């Protein structure tokens, strides 16, 4: 049979980020896919050579505009671990709340992009309209809609008053009720089911074999979630990872929809459990320069992110490495694309929620 090579990307309507897959086709079936990234590689890890560690956090949170808060948090947690700093309790709760708000906005953004990709434009608009409300919360509480800059090594820069937190919870719970209607459409619409159901199936065994992370792994039945380790106050929250077993594109949509509702509940628990009062310490400033190394793992919206930080007692770190969830999920994406129909490739790629910006740190 004649073999055809179709380049997917670096510019494609469903993926406004530069990723290239050379799709090797026999008839309409993809038999192999060769990835190329690096079109926008920014060398942020190289910047540790000339940017001081106190300023590097502001660079790290610019790895990605969607996971900005959690990149900043991961960097600060790493340095706090090396320097032996225990941040104030209220600061830890605030970080957890902002992290879960980030998860909601990321999933809403992705659901919108997904809807747009399979041709359901008003569903896309509903998802992004709801996401705007989340960005409003970010703007109100951090001053920034995309880049927040509230994380500091040793705590957080800004507080949320108790009345503000109560209002945010009401707003999120109202949004949760509204989102149920949108989730109902995703779950029951025949055209969505036709486009996503049974497409791009990743079995539990395959997901484990390619070291999948995040909603991608959970949609294939793997109950992996870095939050279960209980760090960063997640040990004080009652939650279970959202797991589906079908492993197809629709299961990956369902996991993310359920995680939006779960994040609202986690925020509720955090607000109830955090110490009350607006006059509490938010930051403990460490002294001196860091020395040592650490591996830090966090559960970002797209899955586990892993930071390696090595410090040598100077103002500049010796090494900083961020392994983002998209990087970890690229092998799974290649596995899924092989054997699929060419027409399903865009949806399959989109359902891993690829963030090339993160990968091209």
């Amino acid at each position: 049979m004649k073999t055809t090579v179709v380049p997917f990307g670096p510019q494609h309507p469903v993926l406004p980020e530069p990723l290239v897959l050379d799709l090797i086709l026999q008839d309409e079936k993809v038999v192999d896919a060769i990835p190329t990234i690096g079109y926008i590689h920014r060398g942020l890890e190289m910047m540790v050579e000339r940017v001081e560690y106190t300023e590097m956090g502001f660079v790290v949170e610019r790895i990605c505009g969607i996971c900005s808060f959690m990149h900043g948090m991961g960097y600060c947690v790493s340095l706090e671990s090396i320097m032996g700093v225990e941040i104030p309790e209220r600061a830890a709760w605030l970080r957890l709340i902002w992290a879960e708000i980030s998860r909601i906005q990321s999933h809403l953004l992705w659901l919108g992009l997904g809807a747009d990709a399979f041709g359901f434009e008003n569903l896309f608009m509903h998802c992004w309209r709801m996401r705007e409300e989340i960005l409003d919360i970010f703007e109100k509480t951090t001053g920034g809609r995309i880049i927040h800059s509230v994380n500091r090594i040793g705590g957080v820069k800004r507080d949320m008053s108790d009345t503000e937190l109560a209002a945010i919870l009401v707003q999120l719970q109202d949004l949760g009720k509204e989102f149920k209607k949108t989730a109902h459409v995703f779950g029951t619409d025949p055209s969505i089911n036709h486009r996503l159901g049974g497409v791009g199936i990743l079995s539990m065994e395959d997901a484990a074999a390619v070291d999948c992370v995040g909603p991608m792994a959970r949609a294939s039945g793997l109950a992996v979630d870095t939050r279960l380790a209980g760090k960063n106050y997640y040990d004080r929250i009652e939650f279970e990872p959202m797991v589906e077993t079908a492993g197809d594109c629709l299961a990956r949509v369902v996991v993310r929809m359920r995680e939006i509702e779960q994040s609202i509940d986690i925020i509720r628990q955090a607000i109830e459990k955090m110490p009350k009062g607006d006059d509490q310490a938010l930051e403990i400033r460490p002294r001196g320069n860091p020395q040592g190394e650490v591996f830090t793992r966090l559960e970002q919206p797209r899955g586990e992110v892993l930071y390696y930080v090595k410090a040598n007692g100077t103002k500049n770190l010796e090494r900083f490495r961020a392994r983002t969830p998209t990087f970890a999920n690229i092998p799974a994406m290649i596995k899924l694309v092989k054997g699929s129909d060419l027409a399903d490739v865009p949806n399959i790629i989109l359902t891993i929620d690829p963030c090339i910006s993160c990968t091209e740190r």
Partner: protein
Amino acid sequence: MDSATFLAKVGEYQKGGWRLALINVTTVMAPTAPKHGAAANEEDPDEPTTPAAEAPGVFEIAWAFAKGSDLELIREQITVGDAVPSISEFFGAAFLYENEIRELFGINVTGLNLDLQGQLYQTATKIPFSHQAVKARLAATAAAALAATTAPAAGAAGPAATAASEKNA
């Protein structure tokens, strides 16, 4: 590194249900040449040390494996040109990390199950974390810092010199 022992260790992690979380490399900019084996334990203050510029380039490689909340490492230190065996026969996702460390650090990874032929990243600097590239950047940063400290001093001397010449006039 002893490839057989290393691969046996990796195989144990795979059998134990661990997940490959990261392969990380650090370019070691050691002040003196590293010593190996028995020489590493010898203390001889009279022995001349090799300047950094002549020392062989050293990389630290860490293979990180995750299982639940646990993270374990296999660490190896290699010199430039040493071969590192691929672990993609045990962990299917390893090829991406291995192509990356080959392109960004110039590490010679052998036995890759998917060789991307240097096309994974489109970097402006070829092998940006090689010892030569890191040294060149550090030297440039140091030179820029020196220039920044001397420039304001010259600027400060300017008005003072002007004032002195006005006074003399």
